[in-house]
């Protein structure tokens, strides 16, 4: 591949500001996790706007209701503390929604004035014990600390730490998949069941955020990880966690390992063949069964199709962006099929991005630019120099791809300029098949449309 030298690289890194962020704020991740718990309503301790903006953003992708309560700070709460608002808000939510759980996440406002959430919970119980009808899990998600992915993982960890109970070890496994699509979650459940494993999948918004039309009104959509299953995470025989960049981080898996000595298996997101192989291999070990024929066939068909289409994709240049672990998975798969990722970019800053990428994608060229803490203005400025054949990532790369008139293969979150973002499958052989077909067809479409001959056979 033609590398671009450091001198050619635009000096966009000199901008102090973030221009068109390739990340979202921490509470968004927490809200999505809480809506992946059965009967749980997300609750933001902060201004009204935070909950409304996050609702709007999630709705634009999932096209499902997501009610997020707010303690609705006003000036006095910012000065004297938001305790009254928190109490009133929590009681109103309990009365109106009759939730099984409230998932309370802080915002930058609450964090900055130093709200002590455990203290607020104690006060609430002390003052209104009889009216407190649902447990509350709290998580600290200041938006000046990390991205929506940090909020996501922190909420999963908080749920496990605050609701997980020790017990005699069962044969069940915990699976903490990270921020994947509703279709991915459904696939994971199918796979676990096919291996005959009992499991806790946390979170599970496969039904709550991609459900049916109702015959009757539902205050909180049905589905989600049952509270009992979260309690059981403390007695599982193993935890599986997706996300290579989490290796050094404090997560649900590491917490269960420390507290209850539950072995933690950290894998990359199972995108593409090798990362999926590793996942199926692990399930095989944990279940004592070989990979069901159904999945062996899926893998077989996938390999067959890679051979059918290899000429269309070989040495095509891709710009890959999004959450770090998603990019790691995508880049790993792209390298497996002969595509060259020329830029791997994320708004996150785990400091393990490049290391994780190189581990997962040994074929990744040394010249590939790997950028943490990057934004879309920087991607757009680099893109013309990198001469990509396509972009792969969320809708937010649309204008940069459009500028170069190259296709954008929409994956991840958010997809809000197409329908069906929640149904995009990324994981396992089946997900790789879907992504592969879409990548190849996007390239074929370009070939067909840019040809003066108008080939009808390709």
């Amino acid at each position, binding site marked *: 591949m033609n590398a671009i030298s450091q001198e050619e690289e635009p000096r966009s890194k000199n901008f102090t500001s973030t221009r068109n962020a390739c990340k979202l704020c921490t509470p968004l991740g927490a809200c999505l996790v809480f809506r992946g718990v059965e009967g749980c309503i997300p609750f933001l301790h*902060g201004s009204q706007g935070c909950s409304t903006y996050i609702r709007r953003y999630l709705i634009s992708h999932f096209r*499902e209701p997501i009610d997020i309560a707010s303690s*609705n700070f006003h000036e006095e*709460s*910012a000065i004297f503390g938001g305790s009254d608002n928190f109490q009133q808000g929590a*009681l*109103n939510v309990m009365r109106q929604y009759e939730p099984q759980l409230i998932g309370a996440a802080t915002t930058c406002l609450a964090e900055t004035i130093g709200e002590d959430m455990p203290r607020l919970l104690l006060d609430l119980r002390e003052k209104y014990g009889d009216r407190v009808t649902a447990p509350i899990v709290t998580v600290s998600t200041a938006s000046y600390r990390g991205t929506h992915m940090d909020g996501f993982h922190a909420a999963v960890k908080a749920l496990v730490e605050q609701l997980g109970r020790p017990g005699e070890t069962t044969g069940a496994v915990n699976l903490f998949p990270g921020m994947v699509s509703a279709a991915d979650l459904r696939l994971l459940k199918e796979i676990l069941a096919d291996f005959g494993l009992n499991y806790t999948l946390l979170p599970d918004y496969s039904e709550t955020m991609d459900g049916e039309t109702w015959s009757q009104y539902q205050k909180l959509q049905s589905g989600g990880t049952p509270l009992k299953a979260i309690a059981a995470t403390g007695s599982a025989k193993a935890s599986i966690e997706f996300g290579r960049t989490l290796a050094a981080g404090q997560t649900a898996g590491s917490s269960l390992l420390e507290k209850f000595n539950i072995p933690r298996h950290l894998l990359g997101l199972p995108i593409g063949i090798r990362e999926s192989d590793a996942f199926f291999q692990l399930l095989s070990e944990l279940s004592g069964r070989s990979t069901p024929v159904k999945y062996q066939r899926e893998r077989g068909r996938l390999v067959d199709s890679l051979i059918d289409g290899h000429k269309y994709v070989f040495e095509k240049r891709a710009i890959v962006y999004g959450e770090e672990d998603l990019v790691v998975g995508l880049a790993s798969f792209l390298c497996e099929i002969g595509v060259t990722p020329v830029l791997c970019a994320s708004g996150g800053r785990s400091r393990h991005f490049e290391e994780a990428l190189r581990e997962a994608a040994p074929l990744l060229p040394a010249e590939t630019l790997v950028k943490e803490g990057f934004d879309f203005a920087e991607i757009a400025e680099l893109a013309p120099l990198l001469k990509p054949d396509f972009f792969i990532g969320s809708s937010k790369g649309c204008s940069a791809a459009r500028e170069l008139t190259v296709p954008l293969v929409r994956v991840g979150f958010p997809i809000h300029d197409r329908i069906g973002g929640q149904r995009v499958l990324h994981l396992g052989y089946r997900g790789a098949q879907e992504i592969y077909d879409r990548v190849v067809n996007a390239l074929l479409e370009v070939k067909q449309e840019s040809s003066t001959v108008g080939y009808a056979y390709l």
Partner: protein
Amino acid sequence: MIELLPERQSQVLRTSSGAPATALPCGKASLAGSVSQRACVFCGSRVVLYPICDALHIVHGPIGCAAYTWDIRGALSSGPQLHRNSFSTDLQELDVIFGGEKKLESALLELIAHYQPKAAFIYSTCIVGLIGDDVSAVCKRVGAKTGIPVLPVHSEGFKGTKKDGYRAACEAVYKLVGTGDTTGISPHSINILGEFNLAGETWILRDYYKRMGIEVVACVTGDSRVADIRRCHGAKLNLVQCSGSMTHLAKMLERDHGIPFKRVSYFGIEDMSAALYEAAKFFGDDPTIMLRAQQLVREEIAAIYPELQRYKQKLIGKRAAIYVGGAFKAFSLIRILRLLGMETAVVGSQTGDTEDYRQLQEISNPGTIIVDDSNPLELAKFCLEKDVDLFIGGVKERPIAYKLGIGFCDHNHERKEPLAGFVGMLNFAREVYASVASPVWQFAPRRANRRKEVRPA
């Protein structure tokens, strides 16, 4: 069964025939835990100023507020596209501890040097109000160094409601007004305030006024340039469309520059025509303006009438719920639906005032539910109770409607089809028709189970 929270009950009322309108206690902070559909002060400022397309808009705070407002409005520009970017100081923990002024100053200097905007707006978010950054001082310094107006917008999220954000936006933009040269402005000239060029609506309106012989000095803020706003005090009349957001600006222009203002609406045949006649009447010294207005209205209505009639036949007797940001738009929507043969059974807004709700009661049929600062549970309850066929609102209301098998039309700022003007009326009628008449509803469980009752006429 959905029950209203006791504290919410006073903000819901039902009209009854012959009863005098009552005062709805509105304008209050949202009830904690009620899941209000409202946003915050920042949101109010950001949406109003967003379409000024040759200005730099930078959000001073952690990343969320900027990320969620990146290119979300359908506000089009005929020139620069700078407004469609999302700039943020992206404050980190250390900035919160040690203050964000330096970061803001460097960010501004770099962005202004790179993008060469004609002005810069700096939006304060919650955090900034707490850590005590002196944003005004930074703006002054950067303004002096760069030679462009650098304007702070006091939009800390928790300091009031979205309405306070509108006010902060008006205050900020007003600092530009009066700084431009007004020579050459026609004696028959107007400003359009509170019109945001969603899907090109401003262009439709500008064309109408041009055909009448009226000059539009500035549209604040749809497809606007800083230079237009600087000289908008040279116009003779202000027409205020989104009154909730821009009446404050109109009042300041009246106070300091003696420009009268009138509330208008550009939605629906009746209100659109009235808005054109309003300006024509004001410029009565030239009677040809009125003649041209009448001719324009005749031509435009004739062009859309046959198709409207076709939709009306399919829509007669259908019922609708309306939940919008500002109540003034609801008046137009009720009239539009009536024109299409439909009845409004539920109507509410995020930020209506007492007078808005009084007028809503007057123009609504008996038995209409009127609600201030509602939430998903209440809206679902009302839709079920009134068994509506259509919901008109914004993105946050859409899934409530769809899950219940109810048609939905987006009349919010993300829309991509123009709904203003006569052509907008036709677009809207088409959309209502497409929403109500689609065959997909037969498969929605609630609609499939719906009793084939005989509805009261």
